[in-house]
C-alpha cells in the first residue's frame, strides 16, 4: 500500500477519531446506547484499519503480543474481580450496590469497571484474532 497516499493520509486522519469514538461509546455506555463490547470492537477496528493500510509489522509494534495477552487476561480478571469485590464488601457476587457508601454510586462504579474489563478484553481478543490470521497468511507464501 506504499503507493496509495490517499489511503494513508485518510487513515491517519481517521484512526484517532475512531479511537475517540470508541472511548465515547465506552464511557457514555451507562447513559445511552453503548458499552464495553461495542467500544472494544470499535477500538479494535481502528487498529485493524491501521494494520491494513500500514502493514502488520507497524501495527504489531504499536500493540505487541505481550500487551495483548496481558490485556485479555486483565479484562477477564477485572470483570470477575469486581464481582468478588462485591462479595468482599458484604453483598452477593456482582452486587454493585455495596461498592460505595451510596447505593447508586456503587452501581455506577460497578458497571463502569465491569464495562472497562469487557472493553479491554474484547479489544485485545479481536486484534489478536486479526493478527493471528493475518500473520498466518504470510507464512503460506504467494502461491497460497
Amino acid at each position, binding site marked *: 500500500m506504499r503507493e496509495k497516499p490517499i489511503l494513508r493520509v485518510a487513515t491517519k486522519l481517521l484512526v484517532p477519531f475512531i479511537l475517540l469514538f470508541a472511548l465515547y461509546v465506552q464511557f457514555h455506555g451507562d447513559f445511552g446506547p453503548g458499552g464495553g463490547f461495542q467500544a472494544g470492537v470499535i477500538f479494535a477496528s481502528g487498529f485493524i484499519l491501521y494494520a491494513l493500510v500500514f502493514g502488520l509489522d507497524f501495527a504489531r509494534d504499536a500493540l505487541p503480543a505481550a500487551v495483548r495477552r496481558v490485556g485479555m487476561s486483565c479484562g477477564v480478571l477485572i470483570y470477575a474481580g469486581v464481582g468478588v469485590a462485591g462479595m468482599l464488601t458484604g453483598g452477593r457476587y456482582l452486587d454493585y450496590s455495596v461498592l460505595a457508601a451510596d447505593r447508586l454510586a456503587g452501581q455506577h462504579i460497578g458497571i463502569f469497571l465491569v464495562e472497562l474489563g469487557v472493553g479491554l478484553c474484547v479489544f485485545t481478543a479481536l486484534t489478536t*484474532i486479526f493478527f*493471528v490470521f493475518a500473520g*498466518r497468511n504470510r507464512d503460506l507464501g504467494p502461491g497460497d
Partner: protein
Amino acid sequence: MEVPGLFNYWMVVVLMMAGLYTVIARGNLVKKIVGLNVFQISVFVLYITMGKITGGTAPILGGGLALYSNPLPHVLILTAIVVGVATTALGLALIVRIREAYGTIEEDEILDMERGET
C-alpha cells in the same frame, strides 16, 4: 395483522433452512462456517423480533415514553453474538490449520486422506 404480518418469522425460517442446508450440503469448510453463521443469525432475528412491540421505542429512561420494546432479548442476543464470534474465529483458525496440515479444505478430499491413514 397487516400484509407483512409474520414476515420476520418467515425470514427466520428461510435463513435458518438456508444456513442449515449449507452446513450439511457443502463440502468446503469455509462455506460450512458461513452456513453456520447464517443459521445462528436467523436465531438472532427470531429473538429480536419477539422483543419488538408495535409503536414501542428504545427502552431508555427519561424519555417519558410508556411503551417500549422488550430489551431483554437484545441483551441475550448480544451474548449470543459474542458466542457466535468466538465460534467463528475458532472455526476459521481450525480451517487455517487444516489447510496447512492437509493442503485442502474440501471435506471429501480430507476424508479420503484420513481413510488412507487408518
